[in-house]
């Protein structure tokens, strides 16, 4: 008897473990997110963002052999007690130009929860909850719908999103 896995829905998550004294400058990222949201402009390229992005591409490539190419990036601010609308980063009528993976990075977050929806063949409507913490990333297939919830009532949550396709 043999088994063949035709497709899988892999989720990658963990901390961004930078070398000593080279931590991601999350103040810089949150400032850039604030600026881009207030001014309604694209998220600006910065050395800090590049360090984060390179770390992700290098380490996912090293550990799992997945070579990532950038698609888009943006930052979001979530108000206290806010739950987003269902988020989906693919365009169902333009899958060719849609990303393969969505990466969420906790820039400045507190009590932030991500709920990722998936289907397990006949078992539809399943979900997996994972807390997003500061300096932590979660990467999952962009075909999965997700929600982000700010579970506390005191502060804003800053989350960076980067989408990738793999080659």
């Amino acid at each position, binding site marked *: 008897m043999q088994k063949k896995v035709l497709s899988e829905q892999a989720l990658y998550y963990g901390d961004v473990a930078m*070398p000593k004294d*080279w931590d991601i400058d999350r103040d810089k990222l949150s400032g850039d997110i604030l600026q881009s949201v207030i001014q309604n402009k694209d998220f600006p390229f910065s050395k800090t963002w590049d360090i984060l992005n390179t770390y992700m591409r290098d380490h996912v490539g*090293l550990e799992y052999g997945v070579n990532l190419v950038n698609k888009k990036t943006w930052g979001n601010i979530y108000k206290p007690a806010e739950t987003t609308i269902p988020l989906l980063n693919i365009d169902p009528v333009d899958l060719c130009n849609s990303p393969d993976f969505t990466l969420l990075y906790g820039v400045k977050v507190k009590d932030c929860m991500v709920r990722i929806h998936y289907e397990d063949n006949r078992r539809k409507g399943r979900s997996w909850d994972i807390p997003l913490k500061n300096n932590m990333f979660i990467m999952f297939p962009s075909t999965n719908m997700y929600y982000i919830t700010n579970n506390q009532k005191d502060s804003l949550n800053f989350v960076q999103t980067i989408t990738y396709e793999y080659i």
Partner: protein
Amino acid sequence: MAHFAKLGSNGKVIQVLTMDNDKMLNADGVEDELVGQQWLETHNNWPAQMWIQTSYNTSSNQHKNGGTPFRGNYAGIGYEWDEDNQIFWPKKPYASWVKNTTTAGWDSPIGDAPALTAEQESQNTADTHTWVYEWNEANQSWDLTDLKA
């Protein structure tokens, strides 16, 4: 061209980059690894000490062109940097294998595979068989196998 391996926090090679030799010249016009490391830190946003120079022409602690081997092997993604022995180690093929710092490679605990007999060699040449010794980790032995069988 000079080559530098980018190390992760666990000493594993994440990436190997090529750079112009003139980017690593010191004030005296001599190639200096420290200068190259500093250049890479500035332009590639990764700490200088985590860029280690590697030799494209070195493999199994031998230089392809007869020169002096440098750091055991040309680094590849997933290789491990051994600072004490100054060697880039490829992935360990089997759990029981041990490092050989002379060849910068991994050896089985019972040594190399036995040589094929003259008859086996001639059968391989005639393409009637493909005799090879394969490592059997469970039995800790070299097993003779005919790949054509």
